[in-house]
């Protein structure tokens, strides 16, 4: 089954995450990396959630990853959708939807890549099978 085109809410943004949304508007998908402990993380924080250093920097992600898990949600007024966690090549896993594909053929471990979807504000990151 194919998901219908859907209207997504615009991100509200805040001073801490503004660079992420500014980059998204330029088509770039950013993660954060801590220069003290070297660990990447997502969603972005100013202080590293692992070592609590404030020496975190923005880094462009490859946008490549694989499906860690998913569930095809059928109880939805706007049609079925696939919620998922994708593990990025850089390491962090993130919550997303898998879009623009045959939802019945999804499987754990499947390779996926980033695709931005428009909102009334900055675009939102989604993933689609490679």
């Amino acid at each position: 089954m194919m998901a219908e085109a859907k209207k997504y809410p615009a991100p509200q943004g805040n001073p801490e995450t503004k660079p992420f949304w500014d980059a998204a508007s330029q088509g770039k998908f950013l993660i954060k990396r801590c220069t003290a402990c070297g660990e990447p993380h997502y969603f972005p924080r100013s202080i590293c959630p692992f070592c609590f250093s404030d020496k975190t920097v923005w880094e462009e992600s490859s946008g490549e990853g694989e499906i860690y898990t998913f569930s095809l949600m059928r109880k939805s007024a706007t049609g079925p959708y696939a919620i998922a966690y994708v593990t990025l090549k850089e390491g962090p896993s993130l919550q997303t939807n898998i879009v623009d594909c045959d939802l019945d053929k999804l499987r754990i471990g499947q390779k996926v890549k980033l695709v931005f979807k428009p909102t009334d504000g900055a675009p939102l990151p989604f993933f689609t099978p490679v």
Partner: protein
Amino acid sequence: MSIKGKAYIAGIYEHPTRHAPDKSTAQLHAEVAKGAIEDAGLTKADIDGYFCAGDAPGGAWPMVDYLGLKVRHIDSTETGGCSYLIHLGHAAEAIAAGKCSIALITLAGKPRTSAMAPRAAGAEADFEAAYGATTHNAYGMCAMRHMHDYGTTSEQLAWIKVAASHHAQYNEHAMLRDVVTVEDVLNSPMISDPLHRLDCCVVTDGGGALIVTTPEIARSLKKPLVRLIGHGEAMKGPRGGKDLDLTYSAGVWSGPRAFEEAGVTPGDIKYASIYDSFTITVLMQLEDLGFCRKGEGGKFVADGNLISGVGKLPFNTDGGGLCSNHPVNRGGMTKIIEAVRQLRGQAHPKVQVPNCDLAIAHGTGGLLGVRHAASTCILERA
């Protein structure tokens, strides 16, 4: 300091309603409070501590005022469905520290009459809200990965619903009283893969309340004595996306803390109240608490092992959230209440565990697949 044996559950009350369009939420809180106070043989004036969570309209201060309480200890810890398990632990701490001597804990609400407002978002909102995480699909993602990693099957999950339905048939207040089969569960509509409609709990109006007190006061009342001997609480989330693992819950931390404090092991437990928002919730909690090894929950729950009088670990003998009651979409309160009934010997005779002297009540709150809390209480007949 340990809370072991320092607090007793002297009063319990589960509202018999499952649909209450003609009552207010505050009224339901008052009705369950009245029920628990009367069950304990106390009066409202005796209450000097009050505990409530996010379901209390307006929070603690409007509720304390509405109920007409005069308290010297207040706790409004909000951790979703396991709030009341945490309240029980915190009430024991407060009682042990002399901050209050008779604590009231209430839960009530009406999600069956009208849908509840979504919980307030945290710092993750912009990065998650658009993707439509709900209870159904967040637990579906856990089940999907558990199946992938451990070969757990839908048939095994179905046995959990089957066991709950065997118990619910004897509960006159249960919302679903028909005994179901594994096939019934598998043939029910898919809600969010791999969870079927019958893998899900009921949605009910209602509530429940507890009275927690000192050993001395408990002994002065005319009720069978039930005491808290171990308590644990914990939280888990994606932690910046590092090492995401949805096959275990925060119960891996709350459980051992509670067992260690109680000085007992899972093998000693005679009856288990395990939060059952979905079948997968039960399976993962049983593993996380140590009733079986990680990944072997499917085998553990199969073939009626959770049915009272049939299997090794009788669970949710009131029918649980899967069949009886899930007031305010929060299962922690009713888990404690049925454990106390079992320890008092007041469960339905068809499901009463013989010589039930040690029980566990455990629950989670939030979304198991996203961010959640867990709390474990070990209860003993004194």
